[in-house]
């Protein structure tokens, strides 16, 4: 994803690091001092969410849930409840392709990778048996969570950044700024309103090999674009051996026909989750999903005989 809009105008442009990626906020507002405060408030919210959602931080709210929710009901914050509820709904809607209970599988492959090996088949089978959002019980009357399968771990890596973009955009809009872009690294971008000149924001989808080239340009206005896969997202220090996206049904790294998958929809959290689901589910699943969800579009990148081929689905 390329965040330099073609017709980029003078605007406040701030970047901060959260959730192991660079969040960027661009705001076009007459009062720059006010815009800066609003951007600070949005970054503060992202930082607050990072501390809730990070399953690798033992002090996070999610770690508390992972540690206790199989012992007793845990009441969680409205934000954690909302993202879990959304994740479970997307689990149902994607037939289990998107699943945040993939935490134990992610840990299993991370540990194996550090030893430059693969987990043994029995460990993978055991992990599959305890990986499913069916084992996640959510009670909206109390905002409470129960995990009914011991050993199940939640990992919000495939939806948390999109959710943070959503909350940041909400805060910016609440403070009356209607023109800007919010993005989480190369993962998800959301456009508030059109650009100051009235034209939609233009976001490029990067060429998988040549960072400066664009495969396509997408026009965004009150809409989110999220991308999964592609070499730029691979953290080579940890994931040099495997694809970093774990397929929850097999608890193994993704084996997909796609180079990358992008999802377009109005909600950045949903876009983030769907890009993972499209990447894992491939072309046939993505076509089916977009057919039954009018609002959603996808851009899939395939490699055929050394050439990159774009496929636009839905819309």
């Amino acid at each position, binding site marked *: 994803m390329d965040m330099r809009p073609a017709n980029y105008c003078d605007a406040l442009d701030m970047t901060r690091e959260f959730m192991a990626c660079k969040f960027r906020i661009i705001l076009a507002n007459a009062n720059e*001092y*006010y815009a*800066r*405060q*609003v951007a*600070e*408030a949005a970054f503060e919210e992202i930082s607050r969410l990072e501390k809730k959602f990070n399953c690798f931080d*033992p*002090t*996070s*709210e999610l*770690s*508390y849930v*992972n*540690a*206790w929710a*199989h*012992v*007793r009901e*845990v*009441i*969680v*914050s*409205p934000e954690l409840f909302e993202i879990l509820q959304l994740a479970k709904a997307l689990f149902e809607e994607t037939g289990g392709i998107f699943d945040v209970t993939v935490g134990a599988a992610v840990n299993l492959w991370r540990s194996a990778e550090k030893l430059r090996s693969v987990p043994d088949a029995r460990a993978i089978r055991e992990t599959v048996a305890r990986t499913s959002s069916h084992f996640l019980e959510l009670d909206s*009357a*109390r*905002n409470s969570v129960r995990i009914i399968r*011991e*050993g199940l*771990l939640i990992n919000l890596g495939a939806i948390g950044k999109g959710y943070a973009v959503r909350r940041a955009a909400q805060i910016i809009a609440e*403070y*009356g700024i209607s023109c800007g872009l919010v993005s989480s690294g190369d993962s998800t971008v959301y456009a508030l309103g059109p650009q100051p000149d009235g034209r939609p924001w233009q976001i490029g989808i990067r060429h998988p090999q040549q960072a400066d080239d664009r495969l396509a340009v997408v026009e965004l206005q009150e809409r989110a674009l999220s991308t999964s896969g592609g070499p730029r997202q691979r953290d080579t220090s940890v994931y040099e051996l495997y694809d970093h996206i774990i397929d929850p049904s097999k608890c193994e790294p993704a084996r997909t026909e796609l180079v990358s998958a992008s999802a377009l929809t109005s909600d950045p959290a949903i876009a983030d989750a769907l890009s993972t689901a499209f990447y894992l589910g491939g072309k046939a699943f993505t076509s089916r999903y977009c057919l039954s969800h009018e609002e959603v579009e996808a851009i899939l990148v395939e490699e055929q005989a050394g050439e990159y081929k774009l496929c636009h689905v839905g819309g």
Partner: protein
Amino acid sequence: MSLDNPKRHTKDVTRREFLVGSAAALTGLASIGVFTEATGKTLSKEDVINAAIIGTGNQGCFLLERAVKIPNVRFVACCDIQESNLARGLSIAKEAKGYKDYYQLLERKDIDAVLIATPLHLHARMTVDALRAGKHVFCEKMMAYSIDEAKHMIRVARQTGLTLQIGHQRRYDPDYQHAYKLISDGILGRITHVRAHWNRNASWRRPCPDPKLDELINWRLYRRYSQGLMAELGSHQIDIVNWMLQETPSAVVGVGGIDYWKDGREVYDNVQCIFEYPSGVKFQYQSITSNQYDGCYEQIMGDKGTIVLQIGKALLFREPKSEQLAWQDMAHKEKVQGKEAIVLDASKTPRIQEQRGEGERVSPGQARTRDAVVLELEDFFRCVREGAQPLSTGKTALGACVAAIKANEAMDRMERVTIPSEVYKV
């Protein structure tokens, strides 16, 4: 909208102090131990504690989200004068009733304990009113706007026999506790100097579309409500230094100014102070808002080593002449700016949760929470049940409160301010 004039509160408090004194004299210490005056019941481990929170802004909700997770604690009431804050509080404590007037909340006889997370100038008034209504109180830091108010809170807690805990959560952080143990055992030798920073690069001003709401939302920036950076950030770190040294400052010099964010604020946007301790230790403190390079940490320096403490990490650096530690070879180490640091492992220190044997289990491989705020709140409700003293009491928090206020005085007057030991006596 503006907040109430604190001067009026001070008068109120003084009047109430008299009333409290006479009530306590008449009733004696009726609520010693775990007897709760409001409900007339003795709480056992299994009984549900009915809790409430006054102030559900950012910090209040931060506490509430953690407090609702504690078993056998039920939040039945939330209070805030701002509609949006109250709605946020009620979205976390879904079974609670909302109040705009905290007196109405305190009138409820079924409430055992209250968390207070309001602007600084309201802490004393609300704490005293809650204690007098028979509620155990957890009050956010800094303890109070003035030294007299802080002492008054301690006296009323003593008279009513109820728990008063102040929210200096670093005392509950397993890494800090581990460091405290090592320092008590003499690992740093003779401590001579301390340095602490909390540096940020942000305005500290929350966006406020309606100027009428500015003082309500940005109360931290105005002297009528706030003691500025020394209170909101510094008091946490002064509390830690007082704890590690087991003493309180005897004098302070400092320089502060409004030099970068000239936006109508009344509190300093940068502060630099040096505290002197009776043992001769000098503690240099800095908080600035225009550069975040140094971040937030406390560095305790002795003739045998240095401990650098920050949330999530504690490092020990040995001085060249110090003797080899028995466990030094086995310890996990890392290089920091070319120097070898021993990473202090908090798991070697028994956790507060485990000490009290909660009776709950954690499956192998699952991390137990180390969030200091969860731990401090758990300890508060344990103290409410058992009538025990928390790690962060009114008395310990008074030390940080006095030091922060005296530092502001030193910066305002541009003089060295001495702090006689009587100032800490209650």
